């Protein structure tokens, strides 16, 4: 069946699910960010495996490389932008983590959200 042939895609989907699971379940926010990065790299992996051609060659026209056997360059161009985006999201998130630790002294999501529940109650009445 075609699924077994596209095993790269299967790998990408599994990594994506691992990443999503970590983001949702893990309590430590730095672990969550690692999960986020895993999700992103999984999608990038999916993009590149999209563009692959059986026994193709790198898309660089140096010394008579035959264009028809070249790998599809567009996903690679998109992923260059994607990686930069991933880095910037991680940089922003980590600076938020540093400030959160300074303000709350904990990295655990439940402690953060629990204070919020108390404050909401206290702000409620």
């Amino acid at each position: 069946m075609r699924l077994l042939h596209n095993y790269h895609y299967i790998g990408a989907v599994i990594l994506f699910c691992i990443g999503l699971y970590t983001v949702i379940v893990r309590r430590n926010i730095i672990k969550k960010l690692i999960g986020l990065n895993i999700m992103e790299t999984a999608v990038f992996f999916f993009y590149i495996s999209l563009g692959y051609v059986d026994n193709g060659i790198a898309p660089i026209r140096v010394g008579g490389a035959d264009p028809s056997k070249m790998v599809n360059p567009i996903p690679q161009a998109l992923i260059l932008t994607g990686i930069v985006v991933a880095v910037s999201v991680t940089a922003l998130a980590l600076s938020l983590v540093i400030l959160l630790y300074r303000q709350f002294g904990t990295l655990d999501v439940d402690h953060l959200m629990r204070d919020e529940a108390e404050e909401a109650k206290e702000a409620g009445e």
Partner: protein
Amino acid sequence: MGAYRHFPVLMITIPMLGAVLLPFLGYLRKRWVATATLLPLAVSAVLGLLLIGRIPADGYLSYELGSWTPHFGIEIRVDYLGLFMMLIVCGISLLALVFSMRYIEREVEGPKLTAFYVLFLLLSAAMLGFTATGDIFNLFVFMEILALSSYALVAVAGNRNAVRAAFKYLLMGAPSSIMVLLAIGFLYSVTGSLNMADLSTRIAESSYSEVLIVAYILFVIGFGVKAALFPMHMWLPDAHSIAPSPVSAMLSGLLVEVSAFAIIRVTFSVFGSGAENLIGGTVDALGIFAAAAVLFGGIMAIIQKDLKMMIAYSTISHIGYIFLGITAFTAEGLAGAMYHVLDHGLAKACLFLCAGSFIYVKGYRRIDDLKGAWRQMPWTCFAFAVASISVIGVPPTAGFISKWYLILGNIEAGNYFYVFVLLSGSILAAVYCFRVIYYMFFQPPKEGAWESRTNEASPSMLAPIWILSFGTLFFGVFSYLLIPSLLKAAAFLL
């Protein structure tokens, strides 16, 4: 082909250039930063106004960057709805910027001020770029700039709640952007092109229907989180109520609408109404979520104590309105949704700025502190009343016209349950909006709460509030300027 074809690109890149140059200016002279940010936005607003006559209601201006033949380079496609959205973005962000010039010194400490203005410019430039692109991946890139700058703008205040709200927003926003990227990957794997117009032709004849359906679902989830559609709205109340008021005006008034516009573009320009069978199921689900959003947002807004929290929940309810317009799949419904985008943007920005001026002058955040507020700040209270009347949808305001077309669209589409939801939504809106007006005008103030003589916030804060509330009235009375061409544009999209 006059020079005006360069205007859309310049509208997007000039504010970006401004944002990039600002830190250098901030490094040299701190004082000029605030006024310097006005310049790029004003330039792009002027360019937008010049474009008005040029784009026919049922046509579009397509502009290949790098002058490559179509579908090879990236194409900027500005149709009537796109220009309509871009002008709203320019207008409201200019007014929010003027408001924040005095307001923000109190909220943000010195060193972060330049960064705030840079982010403000980047946010509005990204919104312009977001509505104008004709290329899906470019849509993702601009969406990422939008996301990043809005996370940081929520956290710019620096206090405990702001940082926590920003992180909560990030934890929901980042996975959703990745889902959009995955959806783009799916579309590319099946059609092989990234240009929206090219995509819609290829989707129509493509045979991989499961991939397309799941791609559409991922798009809706991705943009739905940004547009705070019902099940994915948890981040909005904290983020919008804790963020500084001009920021929450921008987020509530614009960011949420722009993401809704993105779903409109994906649904109609990319998948096209031809692909009814593909996206039919998801669109109905979207309708149910939108109906739930209208009711949930309305009920939650009623029980809120904090003014900005109430306005934030009413945003959730009104996003439900816009999506009900979209899922009706009729020209009137779509025109109503777009007009509601305009009206809700103006009214919601005005409400948040009024809340901001209350906080600026007296530091009151809760609704029952506002009893008898009109004695000291009559102009702000009056503008608040006009804006909330437009939120309810009383005749002379634009809200009435957009509610009219939303209901007409839904009746035409035959789903009466949504008509009932829209009507009860406007009753809920009447309850929570009128409660505040009632407190402001007809309740005696607590002792010492408000001085008797009027001392308003400074004119630079009052002028935007008044322009916004006057805008809702203006577009209510002179709706014939926009409605006929909106209907044509909607029919063109369908």
